[in-house]
Protein backbone atom coordinates (compact mmCIF):
# COMPACT_ATOMS: atom_id res chain seq x y z
CA UNK A 1 0.00 0.00 0.00
CA UNK A 2 1.23 3.47 -0.87
CA UNK A 3 -1.17 5.18 1.47
CA UNK A 4 -2.98 3.89 4.53
CA UNK A 5 -5.26 6.20 6.51
CA UNK A 6 -6.90 4.81 9.62
CA UNK A 7 -9.44 6.79 11.57
CA UNK A 8 -7.94 10.16 10.64
CA UNK A 9 -9.50 13.22 12.24
CA UNK A 10 -8.62 16.89 11.93
CA UNK A 11 -10.11 19.57 14.17
CA UNK A 12 -9.65 23.28 13.71
CA UNK A 13 -10.10 25.65 16.58
CA UNK A 14 -11.71 28.84 15.31
CA UNK A 15 -12.10 31.13 18.29
CA UNK A 16 -14.39 29.36 20.75
CA UNK A 17 -15.70 27.03 18.10
CA UNK A 18 -14.27 23.70 17.05
CA UNK A 19 -14.53 22.81 13.37
CA UNK A 20 -14.25 19.08 12.75
CA UNK A 21 -12.98 19.03 9.16
CA UNK A 22 -12.29 15.29 9.16
CA UNK A 23 -13.99 12.81 11.47
CA UNK A 24 -12.60 9.32 11.27
CA UNK A 25 -11.51 8.84 7.67
CA UNK A 26 -9.99 5.47 6.73
CA UNK A 27 -8.93 4.27 3.32
CA UNK A 28 -5.95 2.73 1.60
CA UNK A 29 -4.51 3.31 -1.83
CA UNK A 30 -2.42 0.67 -3.56
CA UNK A 31 0.50 1.38 -5.85
CA UNK A 32 -0.62 2.19 -9.39
CA UNK A 33 -4.14 3.31 -8.44
CA UNK A 34 -5.78 6.47 -9.79
CA UNK A 35 -8.21 7.74 -7.16
CA UNK A 36 -10.65 10.63 -7.46
CA UNK A 37 -11.88 12.31 -4.29
CA UNK A 38 -15.25 13.98 -4.64
CA UNK A 39 -17.64 15.81 -2.40
CA UNK A 40 -19.34 19.12 -1.79
CA UNK A 41 -17.39 22.22 -0.95
CA UNK A 42 -16.34 22.18 2.67
CA UNK A 43 -16.61 18.41 2.98
CA UNK A 44 -12.94 18.04 3.95
CA UNK A 45 -11.30 17.06 0.63
CA UNK A 46 -8.49 19.62 0.79
CA UNK A 47 -7.89 18.96 4.45
CA UNK A 48 -7.43 15.30 3.63
CA UNK A 49 -5.08 16.13 0.74
CA UNK A 50 -2.96 18.35 3.00
CA UNK A 51 -2.57 15.51 5.44
CA UNK A 52 -1.75 13.07 2.64
CA UNK A 53 0.80 15.61 1.38
CA UNK A 54 2.51 15.91 4.78
CA UNK A 55 1.76 19.64 4.81
CA UNK A 56 -0.50 19.18 7.81
CA UNK A 57 -0.72 16.73 10.69
CA UNK A 58 -3.92 14.94 11.70
CA UNK A 59 -5.42 15.59 15.11
CA UNK A 60 -6.02 11.86 15.53
CA UNK A 61 -5.52 8.59 13.68
CA UNK A 62 -2.65 6.97 11.87
CA UNK A 63 -1.20 7.76 8.46
CA UNK A 64 1.27 5.39 6.80
CA UNK A 65 3.00 6.64 3.64
CA UNK A 66 4.86 3.87 1.86
CA UNK A 67 4.74 1.94 5.11
CA UNK A 68 6.22 4.77 7.22
CA UNK A 69 4.19 6.30 10.02
CA UNK A 70 4.22 10.00 9.22
CA UNK A 71 2.52 11.37 12.30
CA UNK A 72 5.56 11.63 14.54
CA UNK A 73 8.25 12.55 12.01
CA UNK A 74 10.09 15.84 12.59
CA UNK A 75 9.62 18.74 10.16
CA UNK A 76 12.79 18.19 8.18
CA UNK A 77 11.86 14.56 7.53
CA UNK A 78 8.44 15.64 6.30
CA UNK A 79 10.16 18.11 3.97
CA UNK A 80 12.30 15.28 2.65
CA UNK A 81 9.19 13.08 2.15
CA UNK A 82 7.47 15.87 0.21
CA UNK A 83 10.58 16.28 -1.85
CA UNK A 84 11.25 12.61 -2.71
CA UNK A 85 7.94 10.77 -2.51
CA UNK A 86 5.26 13.32 -3.29
CA UNK A 87 4.38 15.53 -6.20
CA UNK A 88 1.85 18.33 -5.80
CA UNK A 89 -0.43 19.75 -8.46
CA UNK A 90 -2.64 22.68 -7.50
CA UNK A 91 -5.74 24.29 -8.91
CA UNK A 92 -3.90 27.59 -9.35
CA UNK A 93 -0.75 25.96 -10.85
CA UNK A 94 1.49 27.69 -8.28
CA UNK A 95 4.49 28.26 -10.50
CA UNK A 96 7.10 30.80 -9.42
CA UNK A 97 6.34 34.08 -11.18
CA UNK A 98 8.85 35.54 -13.67
CA UNK A 99 10.75 32.28 -13.58
CA UNK A 100 11.33 30.15 -16.69
CA UNK A 101 9.54 26.80 -16.92
CA UNK A 102 12.82 24.91 -16.77
CA UNK A 103 13.79 26.50 -13.46
CA UNK A 104 10.36 25.83 -12.02
CA UNK A 105 10.76 22.18 -12.89
CA UNK A 106 14.29 22.08 -11.48
CA UNK A 107 13.17 23.43 -8.11
CA UNK A 108 12.50 20.08 -6.34
CA UNK A 109 15.87 18.84 -7.58
CA UNK A 110 17.61 21.84 -6.06
CA UNK A 111 16.25 20.90 -2.65
CA UNK A 112 17.23 17.28 -3.37
CA UNK A 113 20.86 18.47 -3.89
CA UNK A 114 20.98 17.16 -7.43
CA UNK A 115 23.98 18.58 -9.32
CA UNK A 116 23.23 21.30 -11.88
CA UNK A 117 23.95 19.34 -15.05
CA UNK A 118 21.79 16.38 -14.05
CA UNK A 119 19.09 18.72 -12.84
CA UNK A 120 18.90 20.31 -16.22
CA UNK A 121 18.88 17.02 -18.05
CA UNK A 122 16.09 15.56 -15.94
CA UNK A 123 14.01 18.75 -16.04
CA UNK A 124 14.23 18.88 -19.84
CA UNK A 125 13.25 15.21 -20.03
CA UNK A 126 10.05 15.65 -17.98
CA UNK A 127 9.16 18.82 -19.86
CA UNK A 128 9.31 16.76 -23.01
CA UNK A 129 7.23 14.05 -21.37
CA UNK A 130 4.41 16.54 -20.68
CA UNK A 131 4.65 17.92 -24.22
CA UNK A 132 6.45 21.22 -23.51
CA UNK A 133 9.82 20.47 -25.07
CA UNK A 134 10.04 23.86 -26.76
CA UNK A 135 8.86 25.96 -23.85
CA UNK A 136 11.67 25.55 -21.33
CA UNK A 137 12.52 29.26 -21.33
CA UNK A 138 8.97 30.56 -21.13
CA UNK A 139 7.75 32.14 -17.92
CA UNK A 140 4.21 31.69 -16.56
CA UNK A 141 2.97 34.86 -18.20
CA UNK A 142 4.05 33.50 -21.59
CA UNK A 143 2.16 30.22 -21.17
CA UNK A 144 -1.54 29.30 -21.38
CA UNK A 145 -3.36 27.84 -18.37
CA UNK A 146 -3.08 24.31 -19.75
CA UNK A 147 0.62 24.78 -20.44
CA UNK A 148 1.19 26.17 -16.95
CA UNK A 149 -0.51 23.12 -15.48
CA UNK A 150 1.74 20.91 -17.62
CA UNK A 151 4.79 22.70 -16.20
CA UNK A 152 3.38 22.06 -12.71
CA UNK A 153 2.89 18.38 -13.59
CA UNK A 154 6.47 18.20 -14.87
CA UNK A 155 7.64 19.75 -11.60
CA UNK A 156 5.64 17.15 -9.65
CA UNK A 157 7.13 14.34 -11.72
CA UNK A 158 10.75 15.40 -11.87
CA UNK A 159 11.84 13.74 -8.64
CA UNK A 160 10.11 10.44 -9.60
CA UNK A 161 7.59 10.47 -6.73
CA UNK A 162 5.63 7.49 -5.47
CA UNK A 163 2.45 9.54 -5.23
CA UNK A 164 0.99 12.48 -7.12
CA UNK A 165 -1.51 14.64 -5.23
CA UNK A 166 -3.68 16.93 -7.32
CA UNK A 167 -6.22 19.26 -5.68
CA UNK A 168 -8.74 20.27 -8.35
CA UNK A 169 -6.12 20.30 -11.12
CA UNK A 170 -8.67 21.25 -13.78
CA UNK A 171 -10.56 23.76 -11.67
CA UNK A 172 -9.09 26.73 -13.56
CA UNK A 173 -9.15 25.16 -17.04
CA UNK A 174 -11.74 25.00 -19.82
CA UNK A 175 -13.22 21.60 -20.64
CA UNK A 176 -11.07 20.92 -23.72
CA UNK A 177 -7.86 21.64 -21.80
CA UNK A 178 -9.18 19.66 -18.83
CA UNK A 179 -9.61 16.66 -21.08
CA UNK A 180 -6.00 17.03 -22.30
CA UNK A 181 -4.71 17.18 -18.73
CA UNK A 182 -6.80 14.13 -17.78
CA UNK A 183 -5.40 12.25 -20.76
CA UNK A 184 -1.93 13.11 -19.48
CA UNK A 185 -2.85 11.88 -16.00
CA UNK A 186 -4.14 8.61 -17.39
CA UNK A 187 -0.99 8.17 -19.43
CA UNK A 188 1.15 8.77 -16.35
CA UNK A 189 -1.00 6.37 -14.36
CA UNK A 190 -0.61 3.72 -17.04
CA UNK A 191 3.12 4.29 -16.61
CA UNK A 192 2.70 3.14 -13.00
CA UNK A 193 2.37 6.38 -11.04
CA UNK A 194 -0.14 6.47 -8.19
CA UNK A 195 -2.45 9.50 -8.37
CA UNK A 196 -4.93 10.93 -5.88
CA UNK A 197 -6.97 13.76 -7.35
CA UNK A 198 -9.67 15.99 -5.89
CA UNK A 199 -12.43 17.11 -8.22
CA UNK A 200 -16.10 17.94 -8.02
CA UNK A 201 -16.80 17.20 -11.67
CA UNK A 202 -18.18 13.74 -12.33
CA UNK A 203 -16.69 13.73 -15.85
CA UNK A 204 -13.21 14.31 -14.50
CA UNK A 205 -13.70 11.76 -11.73
CA UNK A 206 -14.74 9.24 -14.36
CA UNK A 207 -11.15 9.28 -15.67
CA UNK A 208 -9.99 7.71 -12.41
CA UNK A 209 -10.26 4.07 -11.52
CA UNK A 210 -11.89 4.65 -8.17
CA UNK A 211 -13.79 7.48 -6.57
CA UNK A 212 -14.14 8.28 -2.91
CA UNK A 213 -16.89 10.69 -1.94
CA UNK A 214 -16.69 12.84 1.18
CA UNK A 215 -19.49 14.41 3.13
CA UNK A 216 -19.06 16.43 6.31
CA UNK A 217 -15.60 15.11 6.95
CA UNK A 218 -16.52 11.48 6.51
CA UNK A 219 -16.42 9.03 3.63
CA UNK A 220 -19.85 8.64 2.06
CA UNK A 221 -18.88 6.14 -0.62
CA UNK A 222 -15.81 4.41 -2.06
CA UNK A 223 -16.55 2.93 -5.49
CA UNK A 224 -14.72 1.80 -8.61
CA UNK A 225 -15.43 4.21 -11.46
CA UNK A 226 -16.18 3.59 -15.14
CA UNK A 227 -13.03 3.77 -17.24
CA UNK A 228 -9.38 3.74 -16.24
CA UNK A 229 -7.44 1.01 -14.56
CA UNK A 230 -8.95 -0.71 -11.61
Amino acid sequence: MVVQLSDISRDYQVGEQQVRALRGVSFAVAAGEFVAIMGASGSGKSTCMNILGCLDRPTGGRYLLDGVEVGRLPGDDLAALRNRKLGFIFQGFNLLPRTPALENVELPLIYARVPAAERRRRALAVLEQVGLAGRADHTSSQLSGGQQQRVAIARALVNQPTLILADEPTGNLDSATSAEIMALFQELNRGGITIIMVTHEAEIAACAGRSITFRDGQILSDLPAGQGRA
Partner: protein
Amino acid sequence: MIELWMSVKIALRALRVNKLRAFLTMLGIICGIAAVIAMIAIGAGARQVISEQIASIGSNLLLVLPGSTTAGGLRTGAGSAATLTMGDLRAIRAEAPSVALAAPTVRGTAQIVFGNLNWSTAVQGTTPEFLEIREWPVVNGRPLTQTDVDGTARVALLGQTVAEQLFGAEEPVGRLIRIRQVPFTVVGVLERKGQSPQGSDQDDVILVPVRTAQRRLFGGRTPDSVNSILIKAVGAEALAAAQEEVTALLEQRHRIAPGKDRDFTIRNLSEMLAVSEQSSRTMSLLLGSVASISLLVGGIGIMNIMLVSVTERTREIGIRLAIGARRRDILLQFLTEAVLLTIVGGLLGIVFGVSGAAAVSRLLGWPTLIAAEAILVAVGFSAAVGIFFGFYPARKAASLDPIQALRYE
Protein backbone atom coordinates in the same frame (compact mmCIF):
# COMPACT_ATOMS: atom_id res chain seq x y z
CA MET B 1 21.03 22.63 3.91
CA ILE B 2 21.42 23.58 0.28
CA GLU B 3 24.83 24.89 -0.56
CA LEU B 4 25.51 28.52 0.04
CA TRP B 5 26.27 29.05 -3.61
CA MET B 6 22.82 27.82 -4.55
CA SER B 7 21.13 30.20 -2.14
CA VAL B 8 23.28 33.02 -3.49
CA LYS B 9 22.01 32.19 -6.96
CA ILE B 10 18.41 32.02 -5.79
CA ALA B 11 18.87 35.31 -3.97
CA LEU B 12 20.43 36.97 -7.01
CA ARG B 13 17.49 35.86 -9.14
CA ALA B 14 15.03 37.24 -6.61
CA LEU B 15 16.91 40.56 -6.47
CA ARG B 16 17.11 40.78 -10.26
CA VAL B 17 13.34 40.59 -10.50
CA ASN B 18 13.11 43.96 -8.78
CA LYS B 19 16.33 45.75 -9.61
CA LEU B 20 15.21 49.28 -8.82
CA ARG B 21 13.94 48.28 -5.42
CA ALA B 22 17.11 46.36 -4.68
CA PHE B 23 19.16 49.41 -5.63
CA LEU B 24 17.10 51.81 -3.53
CA THR B 25 17.36 49.46 -0.58
CA MET B 26 21.10 49.27 -1.05
CA LEU B 27 21.32 53.05 -1.25
CA GLY B 28 20.83 53.30 2.51
CA ILE B 29 23.76 50.97 3.09
CA ILE B 30 25.82 52.68 0.40
CA CYS B 31 25.36 56.05 2.09
CA GLY B 32 25.99 54.62 5.54
CA ILE B 33 29.20 52.83 4.62
CA ALA B 34 30.41 55.72 2.49
CA ALA B 35 29.84 58.10 5.39
CA VAL B 36 31.62 55.82 7.84
CA ILE B 37 34.60 55.35 5.51
CA ALA B 38 34.89 59.05 4.72
CA MET B 39 34.56 60.09 8.37
CA ILE B 40 37.13 57.55 9.51
CA ALA B 41 39.46 58.72 6.74
CA ILE B 42 39.09 62.36 7.74
CA GLY B 43 39.54 61.56 11.42
CA ALA B 44 42.58 59.39 10.78
CA GLY B 45 44.06 62.08 8.54
CA ALA B 46 43.68 64.68 11.26
CA ARG B 47 45.27 62.37 13.82
CA GLN B 48 48.15 61.64 11.50
CA VAL B 49 48.82 65.36 11.11
CA ILE B 50 48.84 65.76 14.87
CA SER B 51 51.20 62.87 15.40
CA GLU B 52 53.49 64.29 12.73
CA GLN B 53 53.40 67.60 14.60
CA ILE B 54 54.21 65.79 17.81
CA ALA B 55 57.17 64.21 16.09
CA SER B 56 58.23 67.63 14.73
CA ILE B 57 58.29 69.11 18.23
CA GLY B 58 60.36 66.30 19.67
CA SER B 59 59.53 63.96 22.49
CA ASN B 60 59.80 64.06 26.30
CA LEU B 61 60.03 67.83 26.47
CA LEU B 62 59.63 70.31 29.30
CA LEU B 63 59.62 74.06 28.84
CA VAL B 64 60.67 76.31 31.72
CA LEU B 65 59.29 79.84 31.55
CA PRO B 66 59.75 82.77 33.91
CA GLY B 67 56.48 83.04 35.79
CA SER B 68 54.62 85.97 37.22
CA THR B 69 56.28 86.97 40.44
CA THR B 70 55.00 88.89 43.39
CA ALA B 71 57.56 91.31 44.75
CA GLY B 72 56.50 93.71 47.49
CA GLY B 73 52.82 93.29 46.59
CA LEU B 74 53.37 94.02 42.89
CA ARG B 75 52.70 91.24 40.43
CA THR B 76 54.64 91.41 37.21
CA GLY B 77 53.31 89.74 34.06
CA ALA B 78 54.28 86.22 33.06
CA GLY B 79 57.54 86.08 31.17
CA SER B 80 58.32 89.70 31.88
CA ALA B 81 60.37 88.83 34.92
CA ALA B 82 63.96 88.22 34.00
CA THR B 83 64.17 85.42 36.51
CA LEU B 84 65.69 82.68 34.39
CA THR B 85 69.41 82.95 33.82
CA MET B 86 72.27 81.15 32.15
CA GLY B 87 73.21 80.13 35.72
CA ASP B 88 69.91 78.27 36.04
CA LEU B 89 70.64 76.53 32.75
CA ARG B 90 74.08 75.43 33.91
CA ALA B 91 72.65 74.21 37.21
CA ILE B 92 69.94 72.18 35.45
CA ARG B 93 72.52 70.60 33.15
CA ALA B 94 74.81 69.78 36.03
CA GLU B 95 72.45 68.78 38.82
CA ALA B 96 69.23 67.28 37.41
CA PRO B 97 69.98 63.61 36.64
CA SER B 98 66.73 63.01 34.75
CA VAL B 99 67.52 65.82 32.31
CA ALA B 100 69.28 64.64 29.17
CA LEU B 101 69.65 67.97 27.43
CA ALA B 102 68.78 71.58 28.14
CA ALA B 103 68.91 74.58 25.84
CA PRO B 104 68.19 78.28 26.48
CA THR B 105 66.20 80.60 24.30
CA VAL B 106 66.67 84.33 24.03
CA ARG B 107 63.96 85.54 21.73
CA GLY B 108 63.16 88.70 19.86
CA THR B 109 61.70 89.95 16.63
CA ALA B 110 64.01 91.64 14.20
CA GLN B 111 64.19 93.02 10.70
CA ILE B 112 66.58 90.95 8.58
CA VAL B 113 68.21 92.53 5.56
CA PHE B 114 69.98 90.86 2.69
CA GLY B 115 70.93 93.11 -0.18
CA ASN B 116 67.80 95.02 -1.07
CA LEU B 117 65.44 92.38 0.42
CA ASN B 118 64.23 92.42 3.99
CA TRP B 119 62.04 90.20 6.18
CA SER B 120 60.75 90.46 9.73
CA THR B 121 61.09 87.26 11.72
CA ALA B 122 61.71 85.66 15.09
CA VAL B 123 65.36 85.55 16.06
CA GLN B 124 66.25 83.00 18.66
CA GLY B 125 69.51 82.80 20.55
CA THR B 126 70.31 79.29 21.73
CA THR B 127 72.98 76.59 22.08
CA PRO B 128 73.81 73.52 19.94
CA GLU B 129 71.66 71.32 22.22
CA PHE B 130 68.54 73.04 20.89
CA LEU B 131 68.82 71.35 17.50
CA GLU B 132 69.33 68.02 19.16
CA ILE B 133 66.33 68.43 21.45
CA ARG B 134 64.07 69.48 18.62
CA GLU B 135 65.52 66.75 16.41
CA TRP B 136 66.09 69.40 13.81
CA PRO B 137 68.83 68.67 11.30
CA VAL B 138 70.68 71.18 9.15
CA VAL B 139 70.18 70.36 5.47
CA ASN B 140 72.70 72.79 4.05
CA GLY B 141 75.84 74.08 5.74
CA ARG B 142 76.65 73.31 9.38
CA PRO B 143 74.86 73.52 12.74
CA LEU B 144 75.74 75.84 15.65
CA THR B 145 78.75 74.82 17.70
CA GLN B 146 79.86 75.44 21.26
CA THR B 147 82.72 77.49 19.81
CA ASP B 148 80.16 79.82 18.18
CA VAL B 149 78.49 80.27 21.55
CA ASP B 150 81.70 80.77 23.53
CA GLY B 151 83.18 83.12 20.96
CA THR B 152 80.00 85.21 20.60
CA ALA B 153 80.24 84.48 16.90
CA ARG B 154 78.00 86.42 14.54
CA VAL B 155 76.70 83.35 12.70
CA ALA B 156 73.11 82.41 11.87
CA LEU B 157 71.06 79.35 10.89
CA LEU B 158 68.05 80.10 8.69
CA GLY B 159 64.67 78.39 8.77
CA GLN B 160 63.35 77.37 5.34
CA THR B 161 60.84 80.21 5.17
CA VAL B 162 63.46 82.85 5.91
CA ALA B 163 65.87 81.30 3.44
CA GLU B 164 63.20 81.39 0.73
CA GLN B 165 62.16 84.95 1.50
CA LEU B 166 65.66 86.40 1.50
CA PHE B 167 67.52 84.19 -0.96
CA GLY B 168 64.93 82.52 -3.19
CA ALA B 169 66.89 80.10 -5.33
CA GLU B 170 70.27 81.60 -4.36
CA GLU B 171 72.74 79.81 -2.10
CA PRO B 172 72.46 81.36 1.39
CA VAL B 173 75.38 79.65 3.09
CA GLY B 174 78.37 81.95 3.42
CA ARG B 175 76.36 85.12 2.68
CA LEU B 176 76.21 88.10 4.97
CA ILE B 177 72.86 89.29 6.39
CA ARG B 178 72.04 92.07 8.81
CA ILE B 179 69.97 91.50 11.94
CA ARG B 180 69.11 94.80 13.58
CA GLN B 181 71.96 96.30 11.54
CA VAL B 182 74.41 93.77 12.98
CA PRO B 183 76.12 91.72 10.25
CA PHE B 184 75.86 87.91 10.58
CA THR B 185 77.23 85.14 8.37
CA VAL B 186 74.76 82.45 7.31
CA VAL B 187 76.37 79.12 8.16
CA GLY B 188 73.45 76.76 7.57
CA VAL B 189 69.83 76.19 6.61
CA LEU B 190 67.49 74.07 8.74
CA GLU B 191 65.27 71.27 7.51
CA ARG B 192 61.62 72.12 6.91
CA LYS B 193 59.43 71.52 9.99
CA GLY B 194 56.03 72.76 8.82
CA GLN B 195 53.28 74.01 11.07
CA SER B 196 53.36 73.79 14.82
CA PRO B 197 50.32 72.30 16.61
CA GLN B 198 49.30 75.90 17.30
CA GLY B 199 49.39 76.65 13.60
CA SER B 200 52.43 78.90 13.46
CA ASP B 201 55.15 78.48 10.83
CA GLN B 202 58.07 76.79 12.58
CA ASP B 203 60.35 77.54 9.66
CA ASP B 204 59.99 81.31 9.98
CA VAL B 205 62.93 81.60 12.37
CA ILE B 206 66.62 82.47 12.61
CA LEU B 207 68.87 80.77 15.14
CA VAL B 208 71.98 82.50 16.49
CA PRO B 209 74.34 81.66 19.39
CA VAL B 210 72.76 82.54 22.70
CA ARG B 211 75.51 84.84 23.92
CA THR B 212 75.55 86.70 20.63
CA ALA B 213 71.81 87.30 20.99
CA GLN B 214 72.24 88.49 24.58
CA ARG B 215 75.16 90.80 23.92
CA ARG B 216 74.47 92.07 20.38
CA LEU B 217 70.70 91.90 19.88
CA PHE B 218 68.28 91.65 22.80
CA GLY B 219 70.30 91.71 26.02
CA GLY B 220 69.54 95.18 27.32
CA ARG B 221 69.70 95.58 31.07
CA THR B 222 69.95 91.88 31.98
CA PRO B 223 72.38 90.27 29.54
CA ASP B 224 72.52 87.01 31.52
CA SER B 225 68.77 86.25 31.45
CA VAL B 226 67.00 83.92 29.07
CA ASN B 227 63.36 83.81 27.90
CA SER B 228 62.94 80.09 28.38
CA ILE B 229 64.78 76.84 28.90
CA LEU B 230 63.85 73.80 26.82
CA ILE B 231 64.54 70.47 28.49
CA LYS B 232 64.59 66.92 27.17
CA ALA B 233 64.22 64.20 29.80
CA VAL B 234 66.27 61.02 29.55
CA GLY B 235 63.08 59.09 28.72
CA ALA B 236 59.31 59.26 28.76
CA GLU B 237 59.19 57.65 32.20
CA ALA B 238 61.71 60.21 33.52
CA LEU B 239 59.59 63.19 32.51
CA ALA B 240 57.88 63.56 35.87
CA ALA B 241 61.14 63.09 37.76
CA ALA B 242 62.84 65.72 35.58
CA GLN B 243 60.02 68.14 36.30
CA GLU B 244 60.38 67.58 40.05
CA GLU B 245 64.14 67.90 39.99
CA VAL B 246 64.07 71.12 37.99
CA THR B 247 61.33 72.55 40.21
CA ALA B 248 63.29 71.75 43.38
CA LEU B 249 66.50 73.09 41.90
CA LEU B 250 65.00 76.38 40.74
CA GLU B 251 63.07 76.86 44.01
CA GLN B 252 66.34 76.49 45.85
CA ARG B 253 68.29 78.77 43.49
CA HIS B 254 65.57 81.43 43.50
CA ARG B 255 65.18 81.14 47.29
CA ILE B 256 61.47 80.42 47.21
CA ALA B 257 60.09 79.35 50.56
CA PRO B 258 57.92 76.23 50.51
CA GLY B 259 54.27 77.13 49.74
CA LYS B 260 55.16 80.51 48.22
CA ASP B 261 54.45 81.45 44.59
CA ARG B 262 57.18 80.31 42.24
CA ASP B 263 58.76 82.78 39.83
CA PHE B 264 58.80 80.21 37.05
CA THR B 265 56.49 77.72 35.43
CA ILE B 266 57.23 74.36 33.85
CA ARG B 267 55.11 73.14 30.98
CA ASN B 268 54.99 69.57 29.84
CA LEU B 269 54.86 69.92 26.04
CA SER B 270 54.27 66.22 25.48
CA GLU B 271 51.22 66.39 27.72
CA MET B 272 49.80 69.35 25.81
CA LEU B 273 50.17 67.46 22.57
CA ALA B 274 48.58 64.38 24.07
CA VAL B 275 45.59 66.54 24.94
CA SER B 276 45.23 67.78 21.40
CA GLU B 277 45.56 64.25 20.11
CA GLN B 278 42.88 63.14 22.54
CA SER B 279 40.52 65.85 21.36
CA SER B 280 41.00 64.89 17.73
CA ARG B 281 40.35 61.27 18.66
CA THR B 282 37.13 62.31 20.35
CA MET B 283 36.19 64.31 17.28
CA SER B 284 36.67 61.39 14.91
CA LEU B 285 34.79 59.11 17.26
CA LEU B 286 31.93 61.58 17.16
CA LEU B 287 32.00 61.79 13.36
CA GLY B 288 32.17 58.02 13.19
CA SER B 289 29.16 57.54 15.43
CA VAL B 290 27.09 60.03 13.45
CA ALA B 291 28.00 58.09 10.33
CA SER B 292 27.14 54.81 12.05
CA ILE B 293 23.66 56.11 12.68
CA SER B 294 23.14 56.48 8.95
CA LEU B 295 24.33 52.90 8.57
CA LEU B 296 21.79 51.85 11.17
CA VAL B 297 19.07 53.68 9.22
CA GLY B 298 20.22 51.82 6.12
CA GLY B 299 19.91 48.55 8.00
CA ILE B 300 16.37 49.40 9.06
CA GLY B 301 15.61 50.07 5.39
CA ILE B 302 16.85 46.58 4.54
CA MET B 303 14.66 45.07 7.22
CA ASN B 304 11.66 47.01 5.98
CA ILE B 305 12.08 45.89 2.38
CA MET B 306 12.76 42.32 3.38
CA LEU B 307 9.54 42.26 5.40
CA VAL B 308 7.63 43.59 2.39
CA SER B 309 9.34 41.03 0.23
CA VAL B 310 8.45 38.15 2.54
CA THR B 311 4.81 39.21 2.49
CA GLU B 312 4.78 39.59 -1.28
CA ARG B 313 6.38 36.24 -1.80
CA THR B 314 4.28 34.32 0.71
CA ARG B 315 2.94 32.06 -2.03
CA GLU B 316 6.45 31.43 -3.35
CA ILE B 317 7.48 30.37 0.13
CA GLY B 318 4.47 28.02 0.28
CA ILE B 319 5.44 26.50 -3.06
CA ARG B 320 9.01 25.97 -1.96
CA LEU B 321 7.91 24.36 1.31
CA ALA B 322 5.46 22.07 -0.51
CA ILE B 323 8.16 21.03 -2.95
CA GLY B 324 10.52 19.98 -0.21
CA ALA B 325 12.41 23.04 1.04
CA ARG B 326 13.17 22.81 4.73
CA ARG B 327 12.58 25.80 6.97
CA ARG B 328 16.33 26.25 7.20
CA ASP B 329 16.52 26.51 3.41
CA ILE B 330 13.96 29.30 3.41
CA LEU B 331 15.71 31.07 6.30
CA LEU B 332 19.03 30.86 4.51
CA GLN B 333 17.53 32.10 1.26
CA PHE B 334 16.12 35.29 2.74
CA LEU B 335 19.13 35.85 4.95
CA THR B 336 21.36 35.51 1.90
CA GLU B 337 19.27 38.08 0.08
CA ALA B 338 19.64 40.56 2.91
CA VAL B 339 23.37 39.95 3.30
CA LEU B 340 23.89 40.17 -0.45
CA LEU B 341 22.13 43.54 -0.49
CA THR B 342 24.28 44.87 2.32
CA ILE B 343 27.57 43.45 1.04
CA VAL B 344 27.07 44.78 -2.47
CA GLY B 345 25.87 48.03 -0.91
CA GLY B 346 28.88 47.98 1.38
CA LEU B 347 31.31 47.52 -1.50
CA LEU B 348 29.72 50.37 -3.44
CA GLY B 349 29.78 52.39 -0.22
CA ILE B 350 33.52 51.79 0.08
CA VAL B 351 34.03 53.02 -3.48
CA PHE B 352 32.00 56.16 -2.77
CA GLY B 353 33.55 56.64 0.67
CA VAL B 354 37.10 56.41 -0.66
CA SER B 355 36.42 58.74 -3.56
CA GLY B 356 34.50 61.06 -1.24
CA ALA B 357 37.51 61.23 1.09
CA ALA B 358 39.77 61.87 -1.89
CA ALA B 359 37.46 64.68 -3.02
CA VAL B 360 37.53 66.23 0.46
CA SER B 361 41.31 66.10 0.38
CA ARG B 362 41.46 67.72 -3.03
CA LEU B 363 38.75 70.36 -2.62
CA LEU B 364 39.16 71.37 1.03
CA GLY B 365 42.80 70.49 1.47
CA TRP B 366 42.00 68.33 4.48
CA PRO B 367 44.34 65.44 5.05
CA THR B 368 42.63 62.05 4.85
CA LEU B 369 43.95 58.60 5.54
CA ILE B 370 42.25 55.39 4.41
CA ALA B 371 43.33 52.42 6.43
CA ALA B 372 42.88 48.86 5.17
CA GLU B 373 41.39 47.96 8.54
CA ALA B 374 38.71 50.61 8.11
CA ILE B 375 37.66 48.95 4.86
CA LEU B 376 37.66 45.47 6.36
CA VAL B 377 35.64 46.73 9.28
CA ALA B 378 33.19 48.34 6.87
CA VAL B 379 32.69 45.10 4.93
CA GLY B 380 32.30 43.13 8.13
CA PHE B 381 29.95 45.72 9.49
CA SER B 382 27.71 45.69 6.45
CA ALA B 383 27.52 41.90 6.49
CA ALA B 384 26.64 42.10 10.19
CA VAL B 385 23.93 44.67 9.43
CA GLY B 386 22.54 42.32 6.77
CA ILE B 387 22.46 39.38 9.13
CA PHE B 388 21.08 41.40 12.01
CA PHE B 389 18.34 43.17 10.08
CA GLY B 390 17.72 40.28 7.70
CA PHE B 391 17.26 37.68 10.39
CA TYR B 392 13.83 38.69 11.62
CA PRO B 393 12.22 38.82 8.15
CA ALA B 394 13.95 35.57 7.20
CA ARG B 395 12.70 33.83 10.30
CA LYS B 396 9.26 35.16 9.58
CA ALA B 397 9.46 33.63 6.10
CA ALA B 398 10.73 30.33 7.41
CA SER B 399 7.99 29.98 10.00
CA LEU B 400 5.08 30.45 7.58
CA ASP B 401 2.48 27.72 7.52
CA PRO B 402 2.76 26.12 4.05
CA ILE B 403 -0.98 25.61 3.66
CA GLN B 404 -1.77 29.23 4.52
CA ALA B 405 1.09 30.39 2.36
CA LEU B 406 -0.13 28.42 -0.64
CA ARG B 407 -3.59 29.95 -0.29
CA TYR B 408 -2.23 33.50 0.08
CA GLU B 409 -3.46 35.85 -2.63
